[in-house]
């Protein structure tokens, strides 16, 4: 992978000088980040599946049929059925909705919180900076799963509360990154110049600093999604995550793990689904970092 990185960097260097078409550029990027590109396709496919789950699936994920319980994989049920006779494939596909939402929404919320606080801390510095960073220190000091458990303890299980728990847990690291980026950006000449010209703080932050943080944020965002998905499965294992009959992948693995010996496909399908999505986001994040970093370095 690292070999690819270096080549990408070099090719970027040459590309900027020459006048290649956009298409050529894209082709080049894809060529040097095959894995990331492939992951992107996988993610898009899974998202499409999740959005059009009702169209893709033959069954309803919640309709029980006790006489069809624990069926082995067959043509009618490619991944068999679970202990309540629900089609596993259908539930895995519908589970993508829940798990992806859990991956995306809390991560997005925590990124937004973290970015705003990071920008404020880095740009204004002084006491505000100190206060925000100590708050971030406090949040980072909690082992994330424990803090999420405490939040779930206070508010009870359920999807919305998972969103809140995971958002609260993860904003601190974002704010640290954004802060340090803001710090270095606000020392740049053009920011200094803008300041001396009397441009408003908000304008500077949103026009000059934030856009330059975006690439980093995109990478961070992509790389944070897997941990949110895995955290949900841990919370489900401890009984404070998603609640039945909601089908999240984590909960499906937890409730099917007693069938590991007798009907492994029940456990393995959601587990592998988790694995694929987590890996895809990791690869995509790595790829994005390789693509976006050179720009950051140049500026």
């Amino acid at each position, binding site marked *: 992978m690292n070999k690819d990185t270096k080549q990408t960097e070099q090719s970027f260097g040459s590309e900027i000088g020459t006048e290649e078409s956009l298409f050529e550029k894209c082709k080049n990027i894809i060529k040097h980040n095959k894995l990331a590109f492939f992951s992107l396709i996988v993610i898009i496919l899974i998202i499409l599946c999740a959005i059009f789950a009702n169209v893709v699936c033959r069954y309803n994920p919640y309709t029980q049929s006790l006489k069809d319980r624990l069926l082995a994989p067959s043509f009618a049920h490619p991944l068999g059925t679970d202990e309540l006779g629900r089609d596993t494939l259908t539930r895995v596909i519908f589970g993508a909705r829940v798990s992806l939402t859990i991956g995306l929404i809390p991560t997005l919320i925590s990124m937004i919180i973290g970015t705003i606080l990071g920008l404020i801390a880095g740009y204004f510095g002084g006491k505000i900076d100190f206060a925000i960073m100590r708050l971030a220190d406090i949040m980072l*000091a*909690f*082992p*994330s799963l424990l803090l999420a458990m405490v939040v779930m*303890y206070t508010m009870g299980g359920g999807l919305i509360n998972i969103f809140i728990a995971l958002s609260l847990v993860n904003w601190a690291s974002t704010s640290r990154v954004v802060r340090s980026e803001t710090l270095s950006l606000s020392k740049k000449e053009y920011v200094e110049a803008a300041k001396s010209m009397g441009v408003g703080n908000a304008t500077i932050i949103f026009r000059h600093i934030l856009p330059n943080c975006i690439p980093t944020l995109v990478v961070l965002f992509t790389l944070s999604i897997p941990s949110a998905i895995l955290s949900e499965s*841990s919370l489900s*294992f401890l009984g404070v995550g998603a609640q039945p009959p909601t089908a999240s992948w984590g909960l499906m693995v937890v409730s099917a793990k007693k069938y590991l010996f007798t009907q492994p496909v029940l*456990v393995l399908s959601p587990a592998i689904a988790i694995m694929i999505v987590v890996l895809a986001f990791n690869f995509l994040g790595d790829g994005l970092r390789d693509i976006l970093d050179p720009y950051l370095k140049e500026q």
Partner: protein
Amino acid sequence: MVKNILKRILISIPVLIGVVLIIFIMLRVVPGDPVTTMLGEHVNQTVIDKISKEMGLDKPLYIQFFTYISHAIRGDFGTSYRMNRNVTGIILDAFPNTVRLAVCAAVVSWIVGIAAGIFAAVNKNNILDRLFMGGALLGVSMPVFMIALVLQYLFAYKLKIFPVSGYETAASMVLPSIVLGWNSAGSIARMTRSNILEVMQEDYIRTARAKGLLEFAVMKSHALKNAMLPVVTMMALQISSMLSGAVITENIFGIPGIGRLAVNAIETRDMPLLQGTVIFTTILVIFGNLIADSLYSILDPRIRKEI
């Protein structure tokens, strides 16, 4: 350097107070009367009121907070509602088990992670590299309890090499340590590998190579030490995620550590115990980060001045 470390310690104090405050408030928001929870169903209101008073729960929140802090400083975290024992005692009994698990897991993850990373870097892009990196990815992409289940099934149940649960003997610690360490090992391996590869591109390595030094010698004397710096910091930062992972691992393998206590406390709504466990683990994390920072400044003179 000593001054820097002292400064770090000083900064940790407000963080610590903040941690206690946040946990304290969060747990007080919980609906329901803690005393009813504690005494169960068959008790009348007069008894409940009497005990609330004894525990100071009738006082304003800020007084409760300061009482708690002043007791906590003296090492008294209150009495567990459900176990009728001193929380500090319960935690101190459980603490060595968690530490032992975390240390063993850390050792597994450092040794395996660094070794695999170096090995993969040396064998860049061949089949071994892919195998190692695949293993590393598996560790970071599976729910911890799935890894545990599969390892238990293979090594304890099928092959009968290790016991299914337990923590007393060295053999019984192997599986929990691997389960808990795998994730970190994966990240460390990936980081080690990419750092080494990056360092190898640097001019001084190229020079060394050009001078005709053997690959191994180059690796040993130049590449490793520069590649290891970020990894060292990372290892210390893993303390936090290790403690998170320990919650799950301890529950699966039946290890009576702090993670188990936290889960117990949540299941039985045992507020003092939960409070104590979270605060205690957090202190550990802060302490770990402190060590990491100090270590980093010892290892890398360049940043000594910056802290």
